[in-house]
């Protein structure tokens, strides 16, 4: 059993690209594994709902080629989590297929494990009926309709399914996991090597899954050295450094709070964590504590189709109209509602985004009475069919262009339109239908795997 292990992470999002020189500098340090996360819900529900990858296949392939060269050269495993972004089975398979193609092309022999986290709606219905599903964070209460409407459902695996594969197949070269708790592959690799303090491996994984984002300036490639009771972080670009502050600040990022981080099986408590500057660019971290939860829960993510969208965009420079823009647009909404009952029933929605006024912050904007020089208007219509969305959007746009208003001097048109055609169908819109915690009978329960050899 090793006293220390080293993990190299090339980037916080697989497919975003990373400096190859920094990667190879990291490889020279003799890492025991390359681990990289590919997932996020941040780009929104469309990826899961429509089965889209976050990055283009060519971008994924470029990152994959470099990492596989490292795998073959050093005979160390590459662990990829949340393949494709949403981590659906199709993305796991697409990633495995790409690995196979690269292996064939470069004459590499690779043993690849695929782990799936797609969840059948029957299981979700069953657990929902048993009262074993609760909202995650600030998500709304679940309904049976949310489950039925979900086009795809995945669960974030903990470290256990990845560990099981690593134990069963010690010679595996690449693990391609579906949707995973971001630090899960890091945790699995630590536990495999007997470093089994969850306060250490979860904290390390939480930071490492973002690559060298914890460095100053924010970087890409990072090396972690993990031992029983602490871990060290060092960015592989010599222009970057980890500082006690930059590392401590990392758990603020995209988290509800920085000190209590809930994950599968429990909560990581960083209230007593310690950060020590080892040298100019390296920080040692210790003191994280893990508090197991009474029931083992996995986070479910589901997305449903919310409708079809058509938009128009344009600008207004006329100060007389800008001075009354809110009542003007409200009047158009009322007029459209009288024509399209779907807008009243809620089956269709017409929303104006007024850029220059409150297009970015909407209701959250504290400056309510700001009068801009010009405003940009994005008209957004969503309906059950693309045809209806287009019809409503077209009508709304014509109204914005030609509806008279008090004090009007510019009687030829109200609106500067850059695009032709002025209305554009942009296709399906999704929503997160599931963001809930589901109890499982074992951490392995809903996940399965297969081995492919190239």
């Amino acid at each position, binding site marked *: 059993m090793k006293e220390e292990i080293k993990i190299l992470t090339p980037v916080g999002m697989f497919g975003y690209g990373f400096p190859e020189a920094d990667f190879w500098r990291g490889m020279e340090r003799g890492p025991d594994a390359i681990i990289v996360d590919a997932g996020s819900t941040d780009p*929104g529900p469309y990826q899961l709902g429509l089965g889209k990858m976050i990055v283009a296949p060519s971008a994924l392939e470029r990152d994959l080629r470099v990492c596989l060269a490292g795998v073959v050269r050093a005979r160390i495993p590459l662990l990829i989590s949340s393949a494709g972004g949403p981590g659906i089975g199709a993305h796991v398979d697409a990633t495995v297929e790409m690995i196979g193609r690269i292996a064939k092309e470069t004459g590499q022999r690779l043993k690849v494990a695929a782990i799936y986290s797609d969840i059948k709606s029957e299981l979700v219905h069953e657990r929902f009926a048993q009262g074993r599903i609760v909202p995650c964070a600030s998500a709304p209460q679940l309904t049976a309709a949310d489950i039925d409407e979900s086009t795809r459902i995945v669960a974030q695996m903990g470290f256990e399914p990845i560990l099981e594969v690593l134990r069963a197949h010690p010679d595996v070269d690449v693990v391609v996991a579906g949707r995973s708790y971001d630090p899960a592959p890091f945790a699995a690799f630590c536990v495999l090597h007997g470093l089994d303090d969850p306060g250490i491996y979860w904290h390390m994984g939480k930071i490492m899954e973002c690559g060298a984002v914890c460095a100053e300036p924010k970087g890409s490639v990072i090396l972690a050295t993990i031992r029983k009771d602490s871990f060290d972080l060092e960015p592989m670009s010599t222009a970057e450094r980890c500082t006690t502050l930059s590392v401590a*600040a990392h758990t603020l990022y995209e988290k509800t709070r920085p000190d209590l981080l809930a994950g599968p099986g429990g909560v990581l408590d960083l209230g007593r964590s310690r950060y020590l500057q080892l040298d100019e660019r390296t920080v040692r971290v210790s003191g994280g504590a893990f508090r197991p939860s009474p029931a083992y829960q996995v986070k479910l993510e589901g997305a449903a189709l919310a409708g079809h969208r058509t938009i128009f965009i344009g600008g207004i420079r006329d100060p007389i109209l800008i001075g009354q823009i809110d009542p003007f647009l409200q009047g158009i909404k009322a007029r459209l509602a009288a024509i399209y009952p779907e807008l009243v029933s809620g089956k269709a929605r017409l929303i104006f985004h007024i850029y220059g006024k409150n297009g970015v912050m909407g209701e959250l904007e504290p400056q309510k009475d700001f009068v801009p020089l010009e405003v940009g208007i994005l008209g*957004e219509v969503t309906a059950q069919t693309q045809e209806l969305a287009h019809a409503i959007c077209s009508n709304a746009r014509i109204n914005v262009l030609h509806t008279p208003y008090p004090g009007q001097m510019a009687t030829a048109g109200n609106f500067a339109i850059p695009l032709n055609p002025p209305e554009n169908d942009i296709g399906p819109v999704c929503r997160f239908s599931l963001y809930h915690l589901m109890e499982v009978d074992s951490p392995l329960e809903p996940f399965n795997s297969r081995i492919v050899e190239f």
Partner: protein
Amino acid sequence: MNDKIKHGDRLRDLAKVIRSKNSGPFELTFDVIFSQFEPYLRVKNSGVLTRELVCRLYGVPDHAVVAFMFFDPALAFKFTLRRGWAQGSIGERDTFGAQQHAPLMEIEIPASREARDSRP
């Protein structure tokens, strides 16, 4: 006498990072991070950053504030709001929640008592 009533600094003059971002699809989280202990402590001790201020600034009720805290290890102030609209869906304005922080920048922080007392 007028000298004593020092014009305060804005938060953007004192902090290194002021940002907003999604924390999952149903929350927006806000971070104010300092690079030095002194301005951090000045802001923390000023009592200006309160739940009430956050609610007033963003026009949200108190129960929408799901976290509100100072985090000494990172010299940081953080609060998290329930998202009032669905992320990346109909009516979205800020998919990543990355541009909701601006009103925090202009918050005025009075000079610390020490700073006032030490001036001639």
